[in-house]
């Protein structure tokens, strides 16, 4: 089971070995399931490389057949400061 999922346009959006900014969804059970987090993270197509598994989905919701793995480096705030 994946802990997170992410929507992408193509697999090129998930370069291995480079830090990438992503909007990921938390799939943990409970009322906050599907809550988004904006993060800087390392990702890999190897599901065992990082601690957390991640499901990849394309732009119209179709799931990629293999799980990825993800390591979150830090959270990102996307709302401009004057609106926070």
């Amino acid at each position, binding site marked *: 089971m994946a802990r997170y999922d992410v*929507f992408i*346009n193509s697999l090129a959006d998930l370069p291995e070995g480079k830090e990438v900014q992503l*909007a990921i*969804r938390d799939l943990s059970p*409970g*009322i*906050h*399931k*599907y*809550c*988004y*987090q904006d993060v800087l993270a390392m990702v890999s197509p190897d599901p065992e490389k990082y601690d957390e598994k991640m499901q990849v*989905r394309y*732009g*119209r*919701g*179709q*799931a990629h057949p293999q799980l990825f793995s993800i390591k979150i480096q830090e959270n990102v705030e*996307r*709302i*401009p400061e004057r*609106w926070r």
Partner: protein
Amino acid sequence: MYKDNREFIKALEAAGELVTIDQEVDWDMEAGAIVRKVCEDKAPSPLMNKIKDYPGHRYLGAPLANYRKLAIAMGMDPESSIPEIAGEYLERTNREPVKPVIVEKDQAPCKENIITGDDVDLFTLPAPMVHEGDGGRYLATWHFVVTKDPDKQEVNWGMYRQMVYNSKIMTGPLFPFSGGGQVFHGKYVPRGEAMPFATVIGPDPLGAIAGSAPTAIPEPEYTGQLLGKPVELVKCETVDLEVPANAEIIIEGYILPDVSIEEGPFGEYTGYRTSPRDTRTVYQVTAITHRNDPITTISNMGVPTDEGQLLRSFTLGLEMDRMLRNQGIPITGVYMLPESTHHLVVVGVKPLYTNIAAQIAQTVFGSSLGMWFHMVVVVDDKTDIYNFNEVLHALSTRCHPVNGIHVWQGVGTPLYPFLSAAERKKSVGPKVLFDCTFPLDWDPLSEVPRLVSFKTVYPQEIQDKVLANWEKYGFTK
């Protein structure tokens, strides 16, 4: 008429259009799947009384997804025909607009629970995961969003989908050609100001119809026309807007002018997930108010027929009817097929002059209604526009493939599934007219083909005799 969603639910039940589900239903796709099957089967609306993780909350699914429910919402006999419902709707909405009244907070059930500030958490509301593969949980599928023009103070109620992004943010498309979108993109964005909004979930059924209707009349007054009395509004807690006092749930906040965040994909009214995930409008939430034991309304967009398809078809068709008659065009009626996901409209006309079909198509495509549909079928005044078999027969036999089909480029919704990505980006909308009238210069006696049907080729006395003896012959009536 019903003051709120709860009185409407009782009326649905009395008419056999409600199924009450007391066993626990999961908000994570199960509720969505129930509503989807209800739409496809044209089944009664499900009232779900126990939602996993959300004690005290309830769902009402597919509240208006067939014409029987629409008749009930209008306070009419559920067996009313489509032309009867349409006639009643036009009669009411041709009356003077009815201004709303403001009631005090203590008379507004939607204020029974008030959550503001740090306590606001959208995940305390049971937003369903409507379809597998959706970009998120959609709280707003059968609702309307209240906004106000900052200069004219004109209020708009519009139905724009909203996805829960995190505890205080929703995202969704707010197209520049929609009522609320025009004000946001035309006034607030250039000024760099945030636009107040209030999302109304579980409104009374006529308020919801007004929110989905393409009318120039402010929707609170339009609702009053449909109701026959003023709609009761109450002031919001954190924004300068008013909302229906008897609604189930209100979400208040501001639409931010200078940031966009991912939304979608979502199963849409065309029956596809067409528009890919993209960055869209950001709704920052400042307050939630709701009734006790609130009922979240769910519409499940997909293949026909859901309430978006049915009501949008119904109201678009009738606004076109009003517009064409005001132009003096001798139409007999307008019917937009819900099964076409409001993409195909049939117009009946007395063909008094050449190119009258082109005049009709150019008028409706050129109006503010035109971006929501792309196929106009014009039939003569002898064809029953509500009879699918007659319309299909006319289309198949009277429309000349070279002379009767006319194509234009126009403005259209990017949700059309047949558009290329480049067309979608520019909201390009190809349009087509199918002229199913015979040329007027054909001699009616010697050149126009004779329609061969029971009603048209037999003398009246023969028809009468056959009908009078029908059961004697051994047929059932």
